[in-house]
């Protein structure tokens, strides 16, 4: 049997040592009537058959080709060196570093991750990562609730709809009210009367791609006695003002764009970075620097008394695992690219997105919004977004995340561009849109 080392002799020897007759005898305390039920599972496969089966499944997926998909995850450049280093088997098959003497690899890499995230966001303390961006936002809202002892939060409709859905699930259980602030012309207006709100949550760039005036939102939040929670794409921070510079108290987001493949939505990782004053409210694992008995610098999980395995019912969160390995991918990737490489990726994305928007406009297409955007924008379409997306897919182009009706923009899709998008990719997208009647229709409308 694969992965099981025991020969029949080994089994006999082990049973003798234990003093029982059979393996089944070890399970005597299981309710007899329920033992060894008939379970319908497909038959076992050997390695060759397994891989053939999986390759056949993967072949029913369509990947590769021009892609302009965004909406929370994007395909970015990942140098070959990143997965080769991050996915070394010592990192892949280690447990949580509870024995620091033999876990300096994971611990130091995490400490370096925390440093890089603090640098990108301009805030003081990053945790060791969380499940994903959406759950990190929900945890940030709970942090603000604990800190301010208030029981309501304000969230901009510009925050990703799935993130807001997760926020609703988490907060409902604790009786915390959520007020959603509608966008005006694709951006979050200064909310009327944030008094009483534990925080204002806004996303930069927002779900429709627009750049928000985060500093003004922060002032409004602070005047009302609450916190500003900035939901950010970490890669954009190679170019954009860091949350710490516009007064954010907490920066959260999803780290996929820093060096993880999209993997049909996961695993990526969430991150959370806070001002020093909020350290004690921060959920999740933290690595700190200290020294060993010989004075050598060393790293260790610290401030663990905040966590569930010690505080149990009184912990700041029930979160136990982080997303260590995907965060390590980001750590290696940031170190591989450095500030210059990361900036080139962010700026290249901006350049290609604006180039795409120009070419679309030149062909008569209409952007749904006039607000400045980063590397993603909203295109008005003639047909419903999901129809447009399928039509493009049929022509070999992955593009067109449908924009929900909650935004009141009519039929529209998100288009994202990254540094990996080429001029030829844009040709393909324009060709496919034209063939689908989208550009022609726009011309008629404008003509």
């Amino acid at each position, binding site marked *: 049997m*694969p992965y*099981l080392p025991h020969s029949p002799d080994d089994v006999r020897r082990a049973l003798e040592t234990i003093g*029982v007759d059979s*393996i089944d005898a070890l*399970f005597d305390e299981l309710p007899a009537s*329920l033992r*060894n039920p008939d*379970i319908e599972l*497909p038959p*076992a496969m050997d390695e060759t058959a397994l*891989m053939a089966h999986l390759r056949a499944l993967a*072949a029913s997926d369509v*990947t590769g080709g021009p892609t302009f998909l965004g909406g929370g995850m994007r395909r970015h*450049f990942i*140098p070959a*060196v990143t997965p080769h*280093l991050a996915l070394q088997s*010592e990192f892949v*098959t*280690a447990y*949580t570093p509870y024995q620091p*003497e*033999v876990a*300096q*690899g*994971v611990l130091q890499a995490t*400490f370096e991750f925390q440093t890089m995230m*603090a640098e990108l966001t301009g805030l003081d*303390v*990053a945790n*060791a990562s969380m*499940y994903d961006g959406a759950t990190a936002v929900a945890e940030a809202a709970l942090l603000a609730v604990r800190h301010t002892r208030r029981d309501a939060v304000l969230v901009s409709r510009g925050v990703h709809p799935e993130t807001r859905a*997760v926020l*609703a699930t988490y907060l409902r*259980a604790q009786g915390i009210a959520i007020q959603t602030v509608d966008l005006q012309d694709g951006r979050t207006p200064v909310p009327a009367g944030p008094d009483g709100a534990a925080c204002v949550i806004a996303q930069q760039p927002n779900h429709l791609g627009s*750049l928000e005036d985060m500093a003004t939102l922060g002032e409004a939040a602070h005047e009302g006695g609450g916190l500003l929670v900035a939901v950010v794409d970490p890669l954009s921070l190679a170019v954009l*003002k860091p949350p710490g510079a516009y007064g954010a108290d907490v920066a959260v987001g999803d780290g996929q764009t820093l060096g993880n493949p999209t*993997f049909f939505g*996961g*695993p990526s990782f969430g991150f959370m970075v806070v001002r020093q004053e909020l350290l004690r409210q921060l959920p999740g*694992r933290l*690595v*700190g620097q200290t*020294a060993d008995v*010989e004075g050598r*610098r060393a790293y*260790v999980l610290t401030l663990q008394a905040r966590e569930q*395995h010690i505080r149990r*019912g009184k*912990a700041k969160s*029930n979160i136990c*695992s982080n*997303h*260590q*390995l995907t965060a390590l991918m980001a750590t290696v990737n940031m170190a*591989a690219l450095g500030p210059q490489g990361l900036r080139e*990726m962010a*700026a290249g994305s901006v*350049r290609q997105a604006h180039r795409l928007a120009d070419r679309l406009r030149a062909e008569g297409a209409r952007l749904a919004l006039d607000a400045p955007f980063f590397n993603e924008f909203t295109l008005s379409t003639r047909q419903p977004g999901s129809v447009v997306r399928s039509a*493009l897919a049929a022509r070999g182009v992955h593009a067109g995340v449908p924009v929900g009706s909650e935004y009141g923009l009519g039929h529209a899709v998100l288009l994202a561009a990254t540094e990996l998008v080429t001029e030829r990719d844009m040709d393909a997208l324009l060709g496919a849109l034209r063939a689908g009647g989208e550009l022609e229709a726009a011309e008629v409308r404008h003509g």
Partner: protein
Amino acid sequence: MAEPRRGSFPSIYERSRPGRRAARPPRHDEPDLAALLGEDQLRDDAPRLPEVSELDLVRHFTQLAHRQFSIDGNVYPLGSCTMKYNPKVHEDAARLFQDLHPYQAPETAQGTLQLLFELQRDLGALTGMDAVSLQPAAGAHGELTGILMIRAYHEARGEGEQRKVVIVPDGAHGTNPATASMAGYSVVEVESDARGEVDLEAFRRALGPEVAAVMLTNPNTVGVFESRILEIAGLAHEAGAQLYYDGANLNAIVGRVRPGDMGFDVVHLNLHKTFTTPHGGGGPGTGPIGVKAHLADFLPVPLVVRQDGGYGLSEDLPHSIGRMRSFYGNVGNLVRAYAYIRTLGLEGLRRVSGHAVLNANYLRVKMQRAGFRIPYQRLNMHEFVAQPPEGVHTLDVAKALLDYGMHPMTVYFPLTVKEAMMVEPTETESLETLDAYAEALGEVLERAAAEPGFLAGAPYDTPVRRLDEVRAARQPVLRFPFADEAG
């Protein structure tokens, strides 16, 4: 940059020199960012990220990997963690699916959706549950999902106000009470009896019309099967409570008895334990949940469904608790778990639990012969609790083991046993490895007796020795101290 102290391993920041880099993204003309985005949107200074050559980068992370224990390098019998071998073929399998985007048109993701649909079906069959969601990102996340569903169920029946309490055994994993609190419940702990099982009388007393759920791990956290589980389930249901199965210890019984058949209403699985997706140094895990039919309406959205002759994602579940995360789940890990189930089949999975329990009992006998105390004198399941002899501290034994290149067991858990050592060898370790482990433990005890003080100094041969954890917590240094911030 500050130079590292003698003997200290360098930080990536200490290897950094301005102008170096390892990787170059595709080149584009430099855009006029101020014109496109607005001057006030741009950052003033570049973030301080490392600047290193590719070879220096490779050396740094390769040497860090060498400063790390792992299953691939070391026996790692952490109780409650199921540190079994992570098959290499799973890594190849997962990569086949890594380029899919979550928002690509569903008709272009049929292979992945089919895989996810079949995994929902197979996990349901293995646990005896009627419906499965693959969404939760970890065990604790699965717990929260399940408890929120139980809450929604009671609310739908008009008992939401009445049921405010979750019962957990005193030996429960810390996530259980933390999850209950996070879901807005208060927690009542019930004691265990002398055999390590839930004390039925105490349990009976704790039950009442205010109880929403009972969370159990079975086998429980001392490695003992709750032999009166059917009675427990009956009592819980009579009181109107839902029974929650913490799947952390499923490896002991997979294929042999199903939580659904034992009377559990909800189960979460730790795919990173029983179904051997790698732990990754602390995650990503994956914690799918399964439920009985009466709870299926409350599952989180979206679900993978059969649709129009193919597969799709459905948000159409009016009583759903909502979303628990973005997108659909940790798909990379779901592929690995799928590959594992398809490789072993039912017969193989039954053998997994059989050999896991065999190995744990074998090592228990060996450790007892080596001088360790076994507080629960009975056959155990996939893990067992031991204690060092009087006068020897568990922590010292654990640290001494590190010098043998062996990872210690889980220490000081469960909290209900003094100086607890929780040992779970898993089915993938050979008898020779277990013999060597017990032998090393025996030597440690001999050394402790012969040379008082030796253990307190251990480990001696690890990359670093015991750390000053008090300093780390009193004056937290949580990011690299750049030279201009020193002091």
